[in-house]
Each structure stands twice: as C-alpha cells, then as structure tokens.
C-alpha cells in the first residue's frame, strides 16, 4: 500500500469551506447574476460616499490602492503575504481576480472569480469536461486552490503526480482504490515520475471518462494515449519495458475492428485493465499467463488453459516472431521476382509477336488477327 503524504506541497491551502467558494472558469454562473446586480447597486452607493478615497482599481501589489489589510490582515478571512508565499499569483493585486471590488468595504457576497479572463484555453477545456456540467464537481479552485495557487506542471515530479491522484480521490474513491495498487501508482511511489497519474490518461482541464467520444480514454483513442508513453523509447527504457506494444496492437485484428467502428473490440484496457493495471508477472494481473483464459473469455467463449503462455504482442521481425518473419521475407523476395518475371514475360510476348509477324507475315491474310 502507498503511504501518500496528504499535502506535502500546498497545492490546496485552506479548508473545504474556502474551496467551496467557487471560481468558475469563463463566464459567471447564471445563478449568480442577481448577486452581481446587487453588488453593482451596493458599489454604486459606496462610490458616492467614499469617492474621495478611490482611484482606479490597481493591480500592482496585493493591497493595491484599496486597503484590504484592515479586514483581511488576520482572523478568519486573512489573506496575508504568508498566505500568498510561493503562489504564482503573489504579485497580482487582489482586484485582479476579485474584479467586482471597486471600493471597500465591499459586498458581503462577491461574484465568482473568472479565471478564464487570463487562462482562457484552460477554461475552455474545463467547459468541455463532464466536471463543468455536474453540480458539485470541481471548478478551478477545486484542484488548484485559491490564494495560494501553485504552479501545477507535474512534469515528471512523482510527488505532484501522486497529489493529483489524491485530489481526484475525494470524489473518485473507487477508481483511486484500484489505481493505488497499480504499476503506475507503485512506480510513482518509488519516485519514477514518468509513470502515469489520472491526468496523463484522462486529460487535464478537459478531463474525460471513456464514455465521452473523443476522450483520450475512449475505445477508439485509448491505444494512442497509452502509446504516448508506451511507444516512447526513453520512458520505457527507464522501466525496461518494450516499446512495441502499441504498434503490435495496431496491426492486430482488434485494432482493425476498432478502426472500422466496432467499439466492442478489445483495446489496451480490455485486457490490461484501466486503473488497476498490473505487470503480467503479477499473479493478480489480468494478463498473467494463468489468467489469460479468463481475460480472453470475456469476448471469446471456449478459451482453454492451453491458451496460457502465448505471446500476444508479437512483432514479426528477426527478434520477435522469427518464423513468421522468415515467411514474410520469403514472400517479399518471391513476389519481387514474380513481378520482374511478369515484366519480362510481357516484353518477351510483345517482342515475340513482332518477330512472328516479321517471319510469317502471310499467316494472317486479313491482317485482323494481328492485334497488338
């Protein structure tokens, strides 16, 4: 089992309460239109009272020209330099995100922060994801946090990758449960940052499950997604894994059936599993020789134990399936000779026809038979 440090890096600081104050990428949600309107009225009133104190909203320093510190310098709603330490947004003014604050004191309820005003690509991606349409599903802050927002470029950092999985666990506990013991999670726990976490397969902002068409884990595309790493020589060399798994799959009948739109045909996940992928050497693995009959039986009735031990991903090459490779080479040579022979045959036949005509011209009295 993995012992995952819940938050070694402050990806999310603050309580669930803070997280629930949503930042919605792109446009503010419809339900909040009323509070926006109310805010405008309140701000209008405040403007007349406190006009002398106001200049344009400044984005220069955390406090800007508005003095936030008297209220947020401490206590429950504190946002101090300490809070912002290490945040990628530390240099931004409060009103850069809380754009609806034009004076203090501000309205009790603020409209949602529009992250999409700067991060439009990410916001557009999120809007396409199932998270966007499911109430209670995470918005930007759900994963990135609020004030202490940190750069989330996992790259090959295994601890960040494990934290991503921990974030998803809050809602996707069952999936995390099977992922936790998989080769991928174990490799990350060993510090191999190349191993896959949730977002590597499902996507980041446009995170999707296998049921949405065009998703990286949908049947038609999952083999390419796996291939991103499992076709990469450098990455696979780190774990001593072969790089031909996806290319051999793509030349198989399963791949042909998939390509022709038969979404029931086997993909990588059909045999290897999805979250719970294990090495074939693991007795619990679906692809362990002892379990292959069961795995294949999901689609192919009548598979016997004799099936066990077969090499599925064969590469027809001198190092892979050598006998089949030999047959192929034999035919390539043979067919090449045949094509040459065919050309020679046509030449000989045409020349022969010309010579025949020259030697026995009277044989075709009508001249009709001498068709070219």
């Amino acid at each position: 089992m993995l012992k995952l440090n819940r938050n070694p890096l402050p990806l999310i600081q603050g309580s669930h309460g803070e997280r629930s104050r949503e930042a919605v990428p792109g446009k503010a949600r419809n339900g909040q239109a009323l509070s926006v309107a109310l805010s405008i009225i309140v701000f209008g009133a405040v403007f007349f009272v406190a006009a002398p104190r106001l200049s344009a909203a400044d984005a220069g320093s955390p406090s800007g020209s508005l003095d936030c510190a008297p209220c947020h310098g401490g206590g429950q709603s504190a946002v101090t330099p300490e809070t912002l330490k290490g945040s990628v947004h530390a240099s931004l003014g409060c009103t850069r995100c809380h754009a609806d604050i034009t004076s203090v004191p501000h309205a009790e309820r603020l409209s949602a922060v529009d992250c999409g005003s700067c991060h439009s690509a990410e916001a557009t991606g999120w809007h396409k994801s199932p998270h966007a349409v499911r109430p209670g599903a995470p918005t930007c802050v759900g994963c990135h946090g609020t004030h202490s927002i940190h750069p989330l470029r996992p790259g090959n950092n295994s601890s960040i990758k494990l934290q991503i999985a921990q974030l998803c666990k809050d809602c996707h506990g069952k999936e995390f449960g099977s992922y936790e013991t998989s080769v991928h999670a174990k490799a990350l726990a060993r510090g191999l940052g190349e191993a896959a976490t949730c977002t590597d397969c499902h996507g980041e902002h446009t995170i999707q499950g296998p049921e949405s068409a065009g998703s990286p884990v949908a049947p038609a595309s999952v083999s390419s997604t796996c291939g991103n790493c499992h076709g990469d020589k450098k990455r696979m060399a780190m774990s001593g894994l072969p790089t031909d798994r996806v290319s051999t799959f793509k030349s198989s009948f399963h791949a042909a059936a998939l390509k022709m739109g038969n979404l029931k045909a086997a993909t990588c996940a059909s045999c290897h599993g999805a979250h719970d992928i294990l090495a074939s050497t693991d007795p619990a693995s679906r692809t362990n020789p002892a379990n292959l009959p069961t795995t294949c039986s999901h689609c192919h009735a009548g598979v016997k134990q004799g099936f066990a031990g077969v090499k599925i991903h064969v590469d027809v090459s001198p190092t892979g399936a050598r006998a089949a490779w030999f047959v192929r080479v034999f035919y390539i040579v043979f067919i090449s000779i045949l094509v040459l022979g065919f050309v020679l045959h046509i030449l000989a036949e045409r020349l022969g026809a010309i010579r025949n005509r020259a030697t026995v011209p009277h044989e075709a009295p009508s001249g009709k038979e001498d068709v070219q």
Partner: protein
Amino acid sequence: MSSQPGSATISRLTLWQRWEHGLMALSVSLLILSGLALAYHEQAWARLLIRGMGGLQGRHWIHRTAAVGLLGAGLLHLLGLIFSRRHRRDFREVRPRLGDFEDAWRGLKFAFTGKGEPPQYGWFTPMQKLQYWGVLLGCVLMGISGALLWNPVLTLNTFPKWVLDIMLVLHATEAQFIFVLFILWHLYDVHVAGGNFPMNPAWLTGNMSEELFARQHPASGKTLRSREEA
C-alpha cells in the same frame, strides 16, 4: 476471331471445366477483394471496400462464403478427374516435363535475341502449366492457413501461438502472390498475349479458333490427333 463465320474451332474446355473455372474465378475474386480490404484496412480505399461489403461483419461472411465456393470448385475439379476420361487426359498434359524449361528458355531467347527457333508449345504452354500448379499449391496453402484462421480460439487451444502467427503472415502474403500471378498475369495472358485480344473465348464457349490454336500451340498437332482418336 473464333466467331468469324466458317472458321474452324478447337474444343479447349468442357462445360464442366467452364463451370469449375467460373466458380473459381468468382470465389477468388471475392476472396481477394474481401481479403485485401482487411489486410490494407489502414488505407482509405480498403475501408471504402469494407463499408461496401456491409462493414467488417459483412466482409467476414463474404470471405467465408467465397472460401466455401473455392472449396466447391476444388471438389468439382476432383470429381471431373474421377469421372471424365478427357479431364484425366488434360491432367496428363499439364504434368511438368523437363522439356518445358527448355521450351520456356527457347521462347525467351527467341523473343529477345531473334536467334534460334520460335518455341514449339504443346496442348499447354509452360506458362499455363505453371499457372495450373501454382493455383493448386496456392489453394492448398490458402486452404490450410485459412482453415486455421477460421476459428482462432480453437487453433490457439490446439496449437502453439506461433503456428497462428505464421498462418496469418502466410495467408496475407500468399494472397498478394496470387493476386500478381493469377490475376494480373493470367488476365494478361488470356486477354492480350498471343493474339488473344480482346479475349480468348474458351472460358465461355469452350472453343478457340483453330488458326489461333495452331499459332499458340504449334506442337500440339500430334496430341490433338491422338485426342480425337481417343
């Protein structure tokens, strides 16, 4: 040509042999179309073909039905050999002889250098003999490998996987061999070569003109006489 009024004809194929040939031509055409479509499924033209056959499932049944058709043609051939004396004579004619290589060599030499005599082919030319035996061997190889691919689960339950791997490569590559030799080459021979243009009608009427026959098979006069006597 042979349809010219008054011109004498030679009987080349019996009705039985023409049905045999027709069934084989139809089956092989369907097999090659549906087979190459799968082998080249990555190509747009192949996918168009598969769609035209009603998708992978339709392609699957066309291929297997045609395979049974080819098996039927093989059976007709065997029955013909058993029950017809003429078919057995044809079979004796098609047996390869050492002289065939000599004839083929003489033909090539004459065509390219103009030296020596034009080849004296008999009832069957060396090329026709090669095609007959090639078809026979091809059917056997495609039949065996196809039968093993028919039910891959049964095959994998019975044989090691490398047998299936070889059969898969064999089936796909032999198919391309057949396509070149028996489709392209054979079609050239019967539609273009030796004054056959636009085609040698024997596959439909069973006959070809005596004049054309004498030109293509000059040495068969003796065998012809013996055939007529028999």
